[in-house]
């Protein structure tokens, strides 16, 4: 039985192993490769997407668990907040290798959706699940504050 859900506003259905993590369905079946694989055990945040508006680690959620849900990936970002986050990221030259950044941005957008003026502590709490091996952390923090002032 195909599992159906909404992906970036479009209804999709995939007939795959119901255990398959959402991450691999998004990447290999839907062909949206912006969402990355970093650990597979909800430790690094590279695979962060929004499920019904909340940030979630798609590597550790079986596709069967999102039947009927609304899934948003980096490719589907279009809100004012999301565009502000991306603009701040670019303005402050946050990225290095860039591999973690889809996940960082998805977590940052979720944070700002909930908390439009986050404190440093709010940022620590919301972002400490996202590893950046290039250690772009200070710029991520600065970009979140910068985006908060521009929204």
């Amino acid at each position, binding site marked *: 039985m195909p599992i159906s859900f909404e992906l970036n506003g479009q209804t999709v259905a995939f007939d795959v192993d119901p255990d398959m993590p959402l991450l691999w369905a998004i990447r290999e079946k839907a*062909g949206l490769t912006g969402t990355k694989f970093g650990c597979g055990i909800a430790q690094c945040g590279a695979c962060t997407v929004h499920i019904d508006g909340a940030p979630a680690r798609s590597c550790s959620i079986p596709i069967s668990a999102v039947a009927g849900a609304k899934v948003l990936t980096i490719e589907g970002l279009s809100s004012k907040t999301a565009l502000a986050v991306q603009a701040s990221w670019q303005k402050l030259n946050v990225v290095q*290798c860039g591999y973690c950044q889809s996940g960082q941005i998805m977590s940052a957008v979720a944070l700002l959706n909930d908390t439009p003026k986050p404190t440093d502590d709010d940022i620590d709490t919301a*972002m400490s699940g996202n590893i950046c091996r290039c250690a772009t952390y200070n710029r991520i923090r600065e970009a979140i504050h910068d985006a908060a002032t521009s929204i």
Partner: protein
Amino acid sequence: MNKQMFPFTASETAVSAPSRRALLKGAGLIIAFSFAPTGARVLAAAPAAKKNLEANAFVRVAPDNTVTVIVKHLEMGQGVNTGLPTIVAEEMDADWSQMRAESAPANVELYKNTAFGMQGTGGSTAIANSYEQLRKAGATARAMLVNAAAKEWKVPAGEITVKQGVVSHAASKHSATFGELADKAAAQMPPADVKLKDPKDFTLIGTVQPRLDNVDKTNGKAIFTLDIVRPGMVYASIAHPPRFGATVKSFDASVAMKLKGVISVVPISSGVAVVADSFWTAKKARDAVQITWDESKAEKRGTPELMAAYKALGKTPGQSAHKAGDATKIMATAAKTVATEFEFPFLAHAPMEPLDAVVEVRDGACEVWAGSQFQTVDQGNVAKVLGLKPEQVLIHTQLAGGSFGRRANFASDFIVEATEIAKTLPAGTPVKLIWTREDDIKGGKYRPMYVHNMKAGLDDKGNLVAWTHRIVGQSIFKGTPFQGPPGSIDPLSVEGAANLPYAVPNIDVELHATDDVGVPILWWRSVGSTHTAYATEVFTDMVAKAAGKDPLAFRQAMLGGHARHKAVLDLVAEKAGWGTALPANTARGIAVAEAFSSVVAQVAEVSRDAKGNIKVNRVVCAVDCGMIINPDVVRAQMEGGIGYGLGAIMKGAITLKDGRVEQSNFDGYDVLRIDEMPKIEVHFLPSTGAPTGVGEPGVPPIGPAVANAIFALTGKPVTVLPISKAIPTV
């Protein structure tokens, strides 16, 4: 969904696989390329059929007014796809907005690293070995555009000016963009000699320009190896042995083969590979293969056994790496001596993008998509597996999600694995191999484990008069083409120690290379300096304390022959307020290190809370890296180096029990997170010297700077790493 073309990133060549022929005209680097146009290019270029200006192997000017720099180095975050185009843009007088970057194909003749003699990225050499080359490439392209304009407008070339991508002749009021002139310029002969700018006229070099990969890396469009899609592609996962050096004795794939989507289970040189129609299925099936390993030749020692062996060796004389005066004699008569022993664990690189490669083998040809860091080596190794000539292997270098040295290895391990798997598949079947994070953490090629034994002698005035330093650990160059003659010292094991910057009249630096250890090792961001800078700089503070001297003053007094070290120390001390008051339970530590011809000093401010938890609050960094191409990229590399080094020093360790790695993922191999990142300030030493590396030199000083602050705070030196082993961190 269709894979889109993104003409502005290095990914383009990868996705579209243009065939490219380089025709060498004469002996010089005057190159004509022929491109099989990609979909995107056909759309852009077809109607007018205007030609690109292929000025040389590095610069292409298109009629759409973009200037593409062919980057011979791997972009792995360090910013080469921004830094190298800056050099070209400067000499061309291009506008920054028209610049693009594209990864070069594997071609050692055209694209060798002049520091290595082969195509590859490492040792923080990208800017240094490209600077003159790309200045010439840019100036040549500019001259061809100017000459084309002169011919077209019938005016003397000498009267033509170029500014921000526009070529003008004031008297005749002619002007044209690079794009408008590209077609005509393509007919020009490249001049044999070009005049380079006087650096005082630079308008781009030395200024902050936005990274060229900013947009694609914030909207999910940047393509990494993990994202490559080829028609008919299959996926692979590999079961590696639980102990290093073990091999497959037998395996039972009956359960694995029953999983829907599994295509094949094949033994390869490094284990057993499973091929399936999705990565998830390949991995699930990989975990279901029952394997009996032959462990007769496997390394079965654990960290405690290795550490004990290293410590015992450290007490015996080693091979001399540097000697001056008579340290033994002077030590015996010193007024005061200080001695200590340091322990360094194995470290994994853990780049954010796990190791991965896509390989497609056809009769007499092979294509590879990978974050290839040693293209020449990878090409040769792939060719060897397939019985091809290196030139029959086409490598599409992809953006890499970090490397830190891991992707640069002489075995081309993950690329060879993908090739071996591809060889078992029907011709033309592309296969994407993905290592899991567990494969990466357990997979070896670590920063080696080391023991350092140190002793210093002070005279009755507190002057350092004798210094002995013994290093025990595996050699990185051993078994590679860079291995020295038998009996020679591996320079990578002693760099930063054998060339101690401090003037000590009597010094012995010795090495014990523990090459019987069966744990695979590799260079790790800043190589030898990851441990030598720590040992020398932490020990220097211990000696300064014994001498009753301020750590900064103690260093400065011994740096007579090292003006750059002195200067960065002065700068960092001034900016950090060295010697000024701090809040209670807070202290500063200072350290300096030279790596890859750059010199970096750092001051760390560390505090301790009521429970004894240590926190690094602020790091001030001063760097002398010669002329700076883009200050913001240098700043980012210092920030990144500090964060990467700090995570390792505070909590990084790979340990073995009976030869089995005890960590498997980011839960056990803990890395730095955002709440642990200190505030960082980066200051530059003004310099007109040739540019030197910045990718690695930010790493070495952070460990000792933090440890020295802890020493100032607690009175106890940190001699066993990671710090978290003895001291709680927050």
